[in-house]
């Protein structure tokens, strides 16, 4: 993508008074970002949750008290001093599995968001810019996918593609492509009519330059609010697929799959197997969800007032 004078971050400023606006401009982008964090509790808490989980997942080998697939613990013991979150039926430490268990869902969540973003945004640019029959056809296909339950689509695709990280990523990202497509296409339609595009056209810019230099960069800020929500949703969906046995094969620690393993012991009252991995999923998707909310507020400060 061609460089642009102002990064999308610069557009995140709320409609401030002119004095505040001037002061804001002089500070570096990082300083502005941190200042915004302080002002937006939602964003800050979200970032904190995500940071905690990210650090935990990255440092898993140092943080986990035991090997997550080591089967030498007691069998099905509730939380105690040695095994803070208890042990499972295969004599493994639940805490260690919880710490390691974020690797798959987080990887799948990020990669599928990236996939969906790339494909959806590209198609949205092209469709919105080209217009005409191509646009109508693409929009129709996207609407059809969008109207169908994403989870069911992901289940069917994941089941057909087989087990592995890539099939999961494809299955989950597929569902989110239409969301990016719709957002970007709508933006392109609006921006296409603006004067600076008109001017570029009058100057005889080739279409590639018009699209990628003048139009595309201006669509990115609206996409930014979608990304964290997408990641949160993708992580929950990945957990759901793993829960249904469509994730990676055992004994890979995975929150969703560990929950489904714990399910059969739940009715006997062994609550710890299901509870803890689930809380981790909630924490991380809550984090991303709050970042998404924060960004939406930021982009559109009046939105909360209706």
């Amino acid at each position, binding site marked *: 993508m061609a460089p642009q004078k102002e990064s999308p971050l610069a557009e995140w400023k709320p409609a401030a008074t002119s004095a505040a606006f001037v002061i804001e401009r002089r500070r570096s982008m990082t300083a502005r970002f941190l200042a915004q964090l302080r002002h937006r509790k939602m964003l800050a808490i979200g970032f904190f949750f995500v940071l905690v989980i990210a650090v935990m997942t990255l440092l898993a080998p140092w943080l986990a008290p035991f090997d997550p697939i080591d089967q030498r613990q007691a069998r099905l013991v509730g939380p105690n001093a040695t095994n803070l979150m208890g042990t499972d039926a295969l004599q493994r430490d639940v805490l260690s599995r919880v710490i390691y268990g974020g690797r798959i869902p987080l990887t799948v969540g990020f990669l599928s968001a990236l996939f969906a973003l790339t494909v959806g945004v590209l198609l949205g640019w092209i469709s919105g810019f080209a217009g005409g029959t191509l646009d109508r056809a693409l929009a129709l296909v996207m609407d059809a996918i969008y109207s*169908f339950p994403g989870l069911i689509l992901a289940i069917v695709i994941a089941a057909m593609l087989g087990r592995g990280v890539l099939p999961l990523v494809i299955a989950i990202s597929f569902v989110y492509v239409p969301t990016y497509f719709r957002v970007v296409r709508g933006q392109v339609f609006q921006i296409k009519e603006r004067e600076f595009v008109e001017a570029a056209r009058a100057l005889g810019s080739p279409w590639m330059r018009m699209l990628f230099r003048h139009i595309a960069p201006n669509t990115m800020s609206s996409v930014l609010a979608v990304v964290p929500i997408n990641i949160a949703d993708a992580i929950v969906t990945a957990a759901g697929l793993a829960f249904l046995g469509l994730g990676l094969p055992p004994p890979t620690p995975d929150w969703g799959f560990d929950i489904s393993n714990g399910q059969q012991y739940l009715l006997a009252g062994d609550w710890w197997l299901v509870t803890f991995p689930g809380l981790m999923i909630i924490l991380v998707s809550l984090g991303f969800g709050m970042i998404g909310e924060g960004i939406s507020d930021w982009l559109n400060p009046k939105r909360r007032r209706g």
Partner: protein
Amino acid sequence: MTRLLLTPVTILVLVTFVFVIVRVMPGDPLQAILGGRSIPPEVLARDRALLGLDKPLYVQYLNYLWGILHGNFGVSLITTQSVTKDILQKFPATLELAIFATLVAGLIGLGSGVMAARRVDRFADHAIRFFNIGTFATPIFWLGLMMQLVFGVWLHWFPVTGRLNILNLITFKADITGLYTVDGLVKGNWPIFIDALRHLVLPSLTLGLILSGFMGRVSRINLMEALDQDYTRTARSKGLPERTVVYKHALRNALIPIMTVLGLQFAILLGGAVLTESVFNWPGLGKYLLDEIQVRDYAPIQGTVIFIALFISTVSFLIDLMYSLVDPRVKY
């Protein structure tokens, strides 16, 4: 009306799509059915011809479309009866769950939305917003399991699996609508009605709670907008009581966009229903789909997906029709 015209196109796109995923992806359907077992090649060839798998792909596609047009989705290898029959048998369970979950989501969503809109930026508003994000972040299967744990295992308040107690399941035939609550009522069989309701509590609460967050947020925004309009100010300055202003003047106008969202949400509801049915062992379409996916049985997977697409289109069409009830300006 455009939506009505769009529906067949949408379904055609989805149907084609499912065909591509299921048939063109790596893996031979017949091999998948037979598993790793070694079968004599002549038997394999005969079965391929029987299933029409020996023909070129476009012929298979046309055959498949022709079958769908005639309501023929093939045969399930698990139940050994036609997929259409299977789907019609499983559908009432999903429908009953969906209806009760929508009731829960509507009550909690609309209620919390109205509460938040009347107290913008006060404590209740923030609490409700947090609840909304929470419902978005919570995996539905986990919520279902927690419900089972708390209300089933610990408190023993409600049954945790199935639609009826085993004994009732054997003696009672739901042959009118297939919805146990409705059939129980119609036949005047109170124990069945109560038993069905008790089984519905946890699954519909699980599904409904997850959906209520989104519903609440849409209600809040739309009601806030309506409360800001001139007609609301007029109603207030006439000296109408606040209740009347909110519920009769503002809420009624906010209902149309809320209903649109409810229609869109129906797809999310059916997706959530799959996981809910899996957790609560609820014998509906979602459970059926998952069982068939376990054995890679193609015909029922395709059939169920298409049926769900049809169902969603029907619901969104009905919601379009309902606009005219809420808003007399809309005419069909």
